[in-house]
C-alpha cells in the first residue's frame, strides 16, 4: 500500500502506540482486500459494549485509554447492552452493568462520544454524497451508502476505533466506484406500506443473495418510501444478506435511472417481488402453540415518528396482563417523546421504553427470556426477527398494527 509521510510516521510510532496499532490493523485488512491506499474519514461510528466485547475487549480498551489514545475525528457509539435505569427490573447482572460503566469511561477518555444509538443517520450525522465515513452497525452503513450516497464499509468495533484514532480507512469495498454499481435488479411489483413490509422485502432479497458485494437495484417502487421505511429495508438487507448497499431507482442519489444504477452495465440477474411473496414471508412465521406474550419494537431503534405512531396506537389501551411490550430508542428520541407526550401514552399502556440499547444485544437476554417464560417474540422488524434466533426466541414478523393487537389481546387477528 502507498502510505503518506504522515502515515509512515504513525507506523513508526510517531503519533503514539495506539495510532501505530490502529494503522497496523487497518493495513492488514486493506492488504487482504487489495487496497492501494488509505483515505481520510470525517466521521466514525463504533460498536463497543460489554455483551459483545467481553472482558478481553474491555481490557483492550483499558490499555488503549491508558496509553493516551484519542480519536482524531468525531466518533460516536452504537446501541449498547444496558439501560442503567432498567438493570434491576430486567434482572441484568449488576457486575456486568458496572463493567459497562467502566467501558464507557474508557471510551470517553479516548474522546469517543457515547451517544449509544444505531440510528445515528437519523439523529446525529448525515454525511453528504461521496463523503468517506467509517461506520459500524450494518444498518448504519447500508443507509449511509445507499440513501446518502456516502462511502463506508462495515467497520467492526476495533476497526472503527482504529479509524477514529488514525482518522482514515483502507480504500476498498464501498469506498471504490467499482463496488457501488448495482449487480442485480429487483422489480417491486407490490405497494409496500408497513415497516414490516419493507423488512420482508429485505429478507426476500437478502436471504437469497448473501454477499457483501451484491448490490440490489429496486425498480418500479410505487410510492416514495419514508426514511424509516428505508431504514427497515436496509437493516433487513444487511441482516439477511450481509449487504452494504442498495439502489432504488428515482429515490436514492446514485440511481436517477435504472441505467445509472448499474453504471451502464447489464444486471447479472432480474427477480420480481409480488404481493404473494410478501404474504408468504408472513405466513412462514408461526406461534408453535406457545403464548404470544412478548412484542418488541427495536432493531433499529425507533425514530420519533415511529414513537408517535406507537403512542397513537396505544393511546388509552392496556397491554394484556402477563404480556410485555418493549420499545428501544435513543436518549435524544426518548427525551423528545417525553416532552411531546408520546412516552406517557406508551408507558400508560404498559409499554417499557428502553434508551440507548437494542433489544437483541441486551446483556443477559437469554436468561431474561427464560425467567419471563418467553418463547415467541413478535416484532415489526425483519432484522430483529432474524438476529435474535441465537438466543432461542421463536420470532414472528408482523405488521405494526398487528403487533399492537397481539400485545393487547395475546392473539393474532
Amino acid at each position: 500500500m502507498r502510505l503518506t509521510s504522515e502515515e509512515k510516521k504513525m507506523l513508526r510510532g510517531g503519533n503514539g502506540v495506539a495510532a501505530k496499532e490502529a494503522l497496523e490493523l487497518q493495513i492488514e485488512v486493506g492488504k487482504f482486500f487489495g487496497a492501494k491506499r488509505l483515505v481520510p474519514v470525517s466521521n466514525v461510528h463504533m460498536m463497543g459494549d460489554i455483551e459483545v466485547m467481553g472482558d478481553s475487549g474491555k481490557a483492550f480498551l483499558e490499555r488503549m485509554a491508558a496509553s493516551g489514545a484519542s480519536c482524531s475525528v468525531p466518533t460516536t457509539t452504537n446501541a449498547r447492552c444496558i439501560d442503567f435505569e432498567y438493570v434491576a427490573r430486567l434482572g441484568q447482572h449488576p457486575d456486568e452493568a458496572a463493567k459497562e460503566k467502566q467501558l464507557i469511561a474508557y471510551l470517553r477518555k479516548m474522546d469517543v462520544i457515547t451517544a449509544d444509538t444505531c440510528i445515528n443517520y437519523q439523529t446525529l450525522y448525515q454525511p453528504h454524497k461521496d463523503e468517506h465515513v467509517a461506520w459500524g452497525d450494518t444498518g448504519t452503513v447500508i443507509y449511509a451508502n445507499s440513501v446518502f450516497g456516502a462511502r463506508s464499509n462495515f467497520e467492526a468495533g476495533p476497526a472503527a476505533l482504529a479509524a477514529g484514532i488514525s482518522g482514515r480507512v483502507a480504500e476498498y469495498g464501498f469506498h471504490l466506484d467499482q463496488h457501488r454499481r448495482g449487480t442485480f435488479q429487483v422489480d417491486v411489483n407490490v405497494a409496500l406500506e408497513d415497516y414490516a413490509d419493507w423488512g420482508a422485502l429485505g429478507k426476500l432479497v437478502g436471504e437469497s443473495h448473501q454477499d457483501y458485494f451484491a448490490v440490489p437495484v429496486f425498480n418500479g417502487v410505487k410510492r416514495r418510501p419514508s426514511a424509516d421505511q428505508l431504514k427497515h429495508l436496509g437493516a433487513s438487507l444487511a441482516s439477511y444478506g450481509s449487504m452494504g448497499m442498495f439502489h432504488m431507482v428515482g429515490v436514492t442519489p446514485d440511481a436517477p435511472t435504472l441505467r445509472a444504477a448499474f453504471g451502464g452495465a447489464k444486471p447479472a440477474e432480474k427477480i420480481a417481488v409480488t404481493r404473494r411473496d410478501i404474504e408468504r414471508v408472513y405466513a412462514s412465521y408461526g406461534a408453535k402453540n406457545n403464548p404470544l406474550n412478548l412484542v418488541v419494537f427495536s432493531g433499529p431503534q425507533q425514530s420519533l415518528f415511529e414513537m408517535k405512531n406507537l403512542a397513537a396506537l396505544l393511546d388509552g389501551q392496556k397491554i394484556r396482563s402477563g404480556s410485555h411490550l418493549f420499545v428501544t430508542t435513543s436518549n435524544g428520541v426518548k427525551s423528545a417523546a417525553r416532552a411531546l407526550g408520546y412516552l406517557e401514552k406508551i408507558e400508560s399502556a404498559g409499554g417499557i421504553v428502553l434508551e440507548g440499547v437494542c433489544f437483541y444485544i441486551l446483556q443477559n437476554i437469554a436468561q431474561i427470556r427464560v425467567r419471563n417464560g418467553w418463547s415467541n417474540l413478535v416484532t415489526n422488524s425483519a432484522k430483529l426477527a432474524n438476529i435474535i434466533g441465537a438466543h432461542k426466541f421463536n420470532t414472528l414478523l408482523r405488521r405494526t398494527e398487528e403487533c399492537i393487537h397481539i400485545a393487547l389481546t395475546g392473539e393474532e387477528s
Partner: protein
Amino acid sequence: MNTKRSAPLIKVRRAYGVVVEGEVLISNEGFSPRYDLDRWTGLISRPGHALEGHNLKDKILITPSAKGGIAAGWAFYDIRHKDIAPRAFVFGVTNPVMVQGAVFAGITITEGWSRWPHDWIKTGDIVRVDPIKKTIRLLTAVT
C-alpha cells in the same frame, strides 16, 4: 480414518494469518458469530443451523458466506481469549467485519475458493490452510 479420497488443492482468493492444520467443520450454510454462536461455549447454538451442536474450538470452519453483523470484530477477539476460537475461517464470500475481526484476533481467514470444497471435504477431515500460498490441502479424510 483413510486417505482414499483424492486430495486436490483448493486455491483461495484472499488470505490472512499463519499456516494452520486442523479438523474441518463444513457447512452449506453461512455463519455469523452473533446469530449462530454461543460465545461462552463455542457451540453453534442457533436452532436449525446446519452445524447446530458442533463446537468451533480448534476447528477449521468452512462456510460459503458471512452473515450479518458488526459483532464479529469483538466476538472473535473474545472467543480467542476464552480459548474457544477456531484455527481458521474459510469463507466462500465474506465481509470486512469477519476479516477485521480475524485480523484483530490473530485468527487465520481466507475468502474465495477455486472449487466447491463441499465436493471433497467432509466434517471431521484434517486440512492444512496456508495463507501464504493461498491453498487448502486435504491431509486426512474420514471414512
